[in-house]
């Protein structure tokens, strides 16, 4: 071939390369499609095929359930008119039109995009109508796994929430993600796999009541935050777990990080005087003090070493004179507690607090649990021992506090807090049943008992700091606390930010419930824990006691057995006269007349509104009973 024509040698090279490329492509397809066990794709997250398990309360009431919701997707190359598409969609999906248009015009995302994921059924219905009226090329609806929380804000911090890719992002949804949605092993096929169900120890009724009480208090005191927890005194199971402000997990993204914060687990604060019950228990257990020991609290606690280093003395709010150990608790005397702390060594005090669980996570399966702050005894200053004894210089979480209180209700044994009752497989088999778990013996049964009795005095005594929690006919043990919050900016105690709290246990003689109320930075007239948190404890005790079969003597409430009695049917006995059928249901009427041979003439459905003959008339052979139902 001449040089001015097409170059046959180059043409051959070209053809050979083309053949090689084509062959390589066939091999590539063969490798993808035919190679067995090609796992690269199998490792990819399998979002749509896994139906996440549900979350239930202890009685099987639904708290979180999987749903299939529509997601609106866009394929931008298909769009004909971005402006119109944005306008229509923003209207139906309540999105911002300019923002949506900006997303459509974003050069970095010019293929597939999610316009809005997991839209509500109403939005989906409206969108389908719209798509029937105007052409929206490139817009489509895709079914996706969604999560629905029928109880909305109820126990939301505990339950957590699920991201749009069906992955738990917080709470139990996060920590139990692998259980609720086990990683799928199969790919490709359309079989839906089901995750396990989780039953919480929470009781929806108790949770609801607690939340109502908490919300009212929140309204009244307008605090930064408010926490209430109710725990079974004997098993460590949480019945309710409230943290305000809260959020609706159905719509979690529209809430701030603060509202979603699970405060009882994550917030570290100085517990204040409530700490005294653990301190005094420690001193008694260590043999430093006895219940009948007396302390003269007339002067402030100001030992020589304090004077030497110019450390401000520890003082009381009032003048309490000579107090015994009970008196220290009743008046919440700082001076008395500080004096009592002199009877033990720092290292022993530290070890006791460690045994109560301070400075360590409780091990509850919630994300972000705080360790609290408890410095080792070596790092303690001269001031530390008495200061920690009155609940300062120590950081705790609300979870640690209520858990530590189980020591007093279980003869000195610390329990592990329980939030999960059981895990049930999709087939209904109980995979894991969480039993009561004791951690260690912290104090002797006698010390535990006497602390409970001393705490009772703090409620029942007219001078007691928790006297506003008194419920006539119910023995309550309680301790209040008011702590200054450390201002994060100055590092010193804030004058305005207080933590008011009460920890209560009832009934004292046989503890059933532990209640802990914490109010952060209340805005009302008083910030004292005893004054503002005690009434909440009282309300909780009054409301919850009947529900948990706790006798309040005035009410003459009988302790009922755990079995539920279904009221017997309103059956009538037919003898010689016609009974009064008015208001009876058709079922009951038919059941009552089952054994009689009176001819019946029944009209309508429902309940009896008219009868003939009227009640009291004699029955004879000719009697025909006419009943009208409505």
């Amino acid at each position, binding site marked *: 071939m001449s*040089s*001015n*024509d*097409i*170059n046959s040698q*180059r*043409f051959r090279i*070209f*053809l050979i390369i*083309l053949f090689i*490329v*084509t062959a390589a*492509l*066939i091999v*590539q*397809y*063969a490798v*993808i*499609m*035919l190679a067995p066990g*090609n796992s*690269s*794709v199998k*490792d*990819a*997250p399998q*979002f*749509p095929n896994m139906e996440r398990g549900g979350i239930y309360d202890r009685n099987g009431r639904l708290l979180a359930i999987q749903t299939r919701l529509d997601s609106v*997707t866009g*394929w*931008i*190359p*298909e*769009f*004909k*008119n*971005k402006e119109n598409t944005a306008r229509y969609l923003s209207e139906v999906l309540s999105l911002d039109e300019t923002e949506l248009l900006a997303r459509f*015009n*974003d*050069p*970095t*995302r*010019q*293929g*597939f995009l999610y316009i809005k994921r997991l839209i509500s059924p109403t939005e989906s219905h409206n969108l389908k109508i719209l*798509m*029937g009226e105007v*052409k*929206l*090329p*490139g*817009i*489509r*609806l*895709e*079914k996706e796994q969604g999560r629905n929380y029928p109880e909305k804000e109820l126990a939301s911090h505990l339950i957590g929430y699920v991201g749009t*890719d069906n992955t738990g992002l917080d709470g139990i949804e996060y920590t139990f993600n692998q259980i609720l949605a086990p990683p799928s092993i199969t*790919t*490709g096929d*359309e079989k839906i796999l089901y995750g396990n169900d989780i039953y919480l120890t929470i009781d929806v009724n108790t949770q609801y009541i607690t939340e109502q009480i908490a919300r009212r208090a929140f309204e009244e005191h307008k605090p930064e935050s408010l926490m209430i927890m109710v725990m079974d005194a004997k098993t460590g199971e949480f019945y309710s777990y409230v943290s305000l402000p809260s959020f609706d997990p159905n719509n979690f993204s529209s809430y701030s990080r603060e509202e979603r914060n699970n405060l009882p687990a994550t917030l570290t604060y100085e517990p204040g005087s409530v700490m005294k019950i653990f301190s005094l228990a420690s001193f008694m257990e260590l043999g430093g003090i006895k219940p009948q020991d007396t302390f003269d609290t007339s002067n402030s606690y100001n030992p020589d070493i304090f004077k030497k280093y110019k450390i401000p003395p520890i003082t009381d709010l009032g003048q309490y004179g000579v107090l015994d150990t009970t008196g220290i608790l009743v008046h919440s005397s700082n001076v008395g507690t500080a004096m009592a702390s002199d009877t033990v060594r720092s290292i022993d005090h530290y070890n006791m607090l460690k045994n109560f669980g301070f400075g360590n996570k409780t091990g509850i399966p919630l994300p972000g649990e705080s360790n609290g702050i408890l410095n080792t005894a070596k790092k303690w200053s001269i001031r530390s021992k008495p200061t920690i004894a009155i609940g300062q210089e120590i950081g705790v979480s609300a979870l640690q506090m209520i858990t530590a209180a189980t020591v007093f209700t279980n003869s000195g044994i610390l329990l592990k807090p329980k939030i999960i009752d059981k895990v049930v497989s999709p087939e209904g088999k109980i995979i894991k049943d969480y039993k009561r778990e004791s951690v260690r013996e912290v104090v002797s049964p006698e010390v535990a008992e006497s602390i409970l009795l001393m705490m009772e005095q703090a409620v029942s005594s007219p001078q007691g700091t928790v006297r506003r929690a008194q419920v006539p006919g119910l023995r309550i043990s309680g301790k209040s606390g008011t702590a200054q919050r450390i201002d994060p900016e100055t590092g010193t105690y804030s004058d305005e930010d207080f933590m008011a709290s009460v920890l209560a246990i009832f009934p004292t003689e046989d503890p059933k419930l532990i209640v802990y109320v914490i109010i952060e930075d209340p805005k009302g007239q008083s910030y004292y824990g005893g004054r503002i948190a005690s009434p909440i404890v009282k309300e909780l005790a009054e409301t919850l006691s009947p529900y948990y079969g706790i006798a309040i003597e005035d009410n003459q409430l009988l302790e009922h057995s755990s079995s539920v009695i279904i009221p017997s049917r309103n059956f009538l006995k037919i003898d010689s006269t016609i009974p009064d059928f008015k208001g009876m249901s058709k079922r009951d009427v038919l059941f009552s007349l089952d054994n009689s041979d009176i001819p019946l003439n029944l009209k309508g459905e429902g309940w009896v509104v008219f009868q003939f003959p009227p009640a009291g008339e004699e029955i004879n052979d000719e009697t025909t009973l006419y009943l009208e139902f409505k």
Partner: protein
Amino acid sequence: MRRFEADKIIMNMSDSGLKGVMFLLTGTGVSALFSASYHFGRIAANNPFYFLNKQLLWIFLGSFFGFVLSRLPIAFIRKWTVPFVIVTVFLNLLTYIPSVGSHSGGAARWIEIAGQSFQPSELVRVALVLYMAHILDKKKDDMEDLFNSVLPVLIVAIVMTTIVYFQNDFSSAIYIFALSLIMLFVAGLKGSYLLGGFLGVVACAVPMIMVKPYRIERIHSWLHPFSDPSGAGYQLLKAKMALQNGKLWGLGIGRGQIKLGGLPAAHSDFVFAVVGEETGFMGIVFILVLYLVFALKGYSIAMKGECKYIRLAAFGLTSAVYFQVLINMAVVSGALPATGIPLPLFSAGGTSTFVTLGIFGLLLNFSRFAKTEKEMACYD
């Protein structure tokens, strides 16, 4: 008058094998498109036949267009090549006018003509190939002369590439420039010129990739599709899953799952994934072999062509179709990063179908001449 009679004889002599392959490709393509698009059509347009109807309309128009092209005298085609190039450039420039250009995918790639959107960049490959064949044949004795033969061709190629590039169609721009380089290569351009051109492309492409971060993202998601499974790597993963589901024989035509929502725009650039899922590896091989037969037929026309014009034009047009096939299939299998290159006759797209059928017509036209010994139609 003599020419006219010759045409009549030649008419029956166009390559029947080539014709058969073209029929098979068109038929298979439209079937695959229907299977891939009926679900989406039902959702998006409330009509499962929406995409099928559209495609059938364009096949009808395209077949007519191809038929006309297959019967035009070559001399006529050559005479009108330069005006065609000018019209193509004009139409492409229209996309820059906001009221005419229809924005989609971040770029104005469409213009609206009588209610139908039209993608003028699809015309570029035909215009460029015909123009290059025309000029390179005309200047075949000046191939060593840089300014006289190479430069005009190169300038037109660069202008076309730039226009397409600024329609935000980077991959099509690369495709068009690569096509012109390969034509120059086969046309016997001096090696040093070619090397210079190639280096020029690389020097231009790198900053162009850097300018638009999403291109880097696309390349990244191609290399690591699992790093962002719900974002840029999503389509790739879904396409791969569809192919895996297909195995050897496929799930059966119409039984694919991925088009039911897993794979966005399954009827568009990723239609081959649906084909793979439904007809399996055997279906993939069948279609690839069909295209290969088409390419071999086209290249044999190029080999046997009467003159340099026919050879180059046949070579260029065959390559224009076959390159698209290779690029699209490579993208679907994950061997190349995602581009906007359709699978001719399979992907939904009116202009692409219309132009591909036009190319078929031209090739049939050339094949007729390739078989006749009687006439030398290749003159200026």
